């Protein structure tokens, strides 16, 4: 190698020829950049909005703008990478079906061709033209790319309301196509019929913020007020997780409930209560509860009651500390006949539960007061000091009788059990476990209702709106 060759600096590589072809708008004289020269058929002047014929050497005006120009949120000429491909925005069109408006950016990549970035005002979808027809799926839908699509409503007209930039087809405000949508969660197949030509476009919904990050615009707030037809429910994954967790929790609850053990009988005795007679006191001694805490259940059964009631007042007294825990129950039964026939009501066997009673030996004092129902004028009896002490098991004669003083008596059997399970706890636990899955289910159903709102009554407003936090 010679010294001259070493000294001479290498010539810098020639800059690549610009792919942008500037021309002047014949309507306003402004400069119009044609970015995809050779492919672009029409271009819309960014200064006056006139639609120009890009295939004509002198850029003939196809249509003059009939409204003031609006600036698209993503500037034309801006480049951004979406799902591994760098796209440049070359055109912008706004379309409307009469009720819903949306915007479409025409994207261009020299290797990939054209694509669409559809903006419904909330989220973006990336659209690519299909080069083969979707297959029919059992005559009720379409199949494409391994996915099954169902038709979303009837065909509807879509009109161009604003356009700027350059396009590979002649587009102007007022151009109307007939569109039919087929959807599956996250993807839409849009079929457009225009002047005897049919085109299919596959629209894949982008994640929140994906297009915004690619083209450097502000992120949009997540809201699900007006979901797109192909928008997947954000509540569906949560719903699945909620039900899985809820079912596991419910099964666990049943399993541990089964470990509670059964009830154990401590005492059972029967006494007579005199209707409208004096109160009677029954004492059941030696109710032994194991260490720790226990549930105590007292059942009173007065099976011969008829149009009468028995007040039962319980006092569970610790023999050691003389601390007492009070509760009560009422056995009652009424029957009669009216214009609708025979009727009856009441509970002849009331159950009273004592919760979490400390271990020890207790005396259960039961005070009974029986009364005959004589209509609205019935009143409680005056207590008198007629008490008897009983221990262990009593008797049951199962019918009405007469007391030594001549009053009508009602046999009442009092039974004491300990242990067992509170059914109310299980029901409460199940209800609490079900709350969240039910809330998520309703949110999911509300989303689906709003998504399909355009199918019924032409897209009526639905005030139920949710934001994903």
């Amino acid at each position, binding site marked *: 190698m010679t010294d001259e060759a070493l000294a001479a600096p290498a010539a810098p590589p020639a800059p690549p020829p610009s792919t942008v072809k500037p021309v002047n708008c014949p309507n306003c004289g402004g400069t119009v950049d044609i970015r995809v020269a050779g492919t672009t058929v029409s271009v819309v002047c960014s200064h006056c909005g006139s639609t120009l014929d890009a295939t004509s050497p002198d850029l003939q005006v196809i249509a003059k703008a009939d409204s003031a120009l609006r600036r698209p949120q993503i500037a034309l000429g801006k480049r951004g990478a979406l799902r591994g491909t760098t796209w440049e925005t070359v055109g912008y069109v706004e379309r409307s079906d009469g009720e819903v408006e949306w915007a479409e950016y025409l994207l261009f990549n020299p290797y990939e061709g054209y694509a669409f970035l559809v903006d419904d005002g909330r989220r973006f979808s990336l659209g690519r033209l299909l080069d083969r027809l979707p297959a029919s799926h059992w005559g009720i839908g379409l199949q494409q790319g391994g996915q099954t699509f169902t038709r979303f409503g009837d065909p509807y007209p879509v009109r161009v309301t604003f356009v700027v930039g350059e396009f590979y087809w002649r587009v102007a405000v007022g151009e109307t196509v007939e569109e039919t949508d087929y959807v599956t969660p996250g993807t839409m197949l849009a079929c457009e019929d225009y002047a005897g030509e049919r085109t299919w476009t596959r629209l894949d919904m982008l994640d929140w913020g994906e297009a915004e990050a690619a083209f450097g615009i502000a992120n949009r707030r997540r809201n699900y007020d007006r979901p797109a037809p192909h928008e997947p429910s954000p509540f569906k*994954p*949560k719903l699945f*997780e*909620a039900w899985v*967790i*809820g079912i*596991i*929790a419910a099964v*666990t*609850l049943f399993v*541990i*409930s089964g*470990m*509670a053990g059964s009830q154990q009988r401590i005492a059972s005795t029967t006494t007579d209560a005199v209707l409208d007679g004096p109160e009677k006191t029954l004492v059941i001694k030696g109710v032994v509860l194991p260490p*720790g*805490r*226990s*549930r*105590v259940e007292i059942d009173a059964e007065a099976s011969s009651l008829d149009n009468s*009631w028995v*007040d039962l*007042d319980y*006092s569970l007294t610790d023999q050691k500390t003389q601390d007492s*825990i*009070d*509760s*009560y*129950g*009422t056995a*009652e039964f*009424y029957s*009669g006949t*009216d214009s609708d026939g025979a*009727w009856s*009501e*009441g509970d002849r066997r009331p159950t009273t*539960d*004592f*919760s*979490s*009673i400390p271990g020890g030996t207790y005396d259960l004092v039961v005070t009974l007061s029986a*009364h005959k*129902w004589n*209509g*609205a004028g*019935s*009143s*409680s009896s005056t207590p008198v000091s007629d008490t008897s002490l009983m221990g262990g098991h009593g008797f049951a004669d199962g019918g009405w009788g007469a007391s030594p003083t001549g009053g009508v008596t009602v046999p009442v059997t009092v039974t004491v059990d300990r*242990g*067992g*399970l*509170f059914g*109310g*706890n299980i029901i*409460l*636990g199940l209800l*609490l*476990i079900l709350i*969240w899955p039910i809330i*998520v289910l309703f949110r999911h159903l509300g989303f689906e209702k709003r998504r399909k709102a355009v199918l019924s009554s032409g897209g009526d407003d639905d005030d139920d709106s949710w934001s994903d936090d």
Partner: protein
Amino acid sequence: MSRHSLIYGLFCLGIIGFSVFAIRDGYSPFASAGARGPMMFGGYGPTHK
């Protein structure tokens, strides 16, 4: 798993923990408690109309 599901899972664990405690101690928030009050007398008779 979403944050909501994680919180819900912890909530379910709390429910199960409460149930274990309630079963062990024979506890129920619905158990009868307290003596009959003076206003509780007199409300007898059928409600049938």
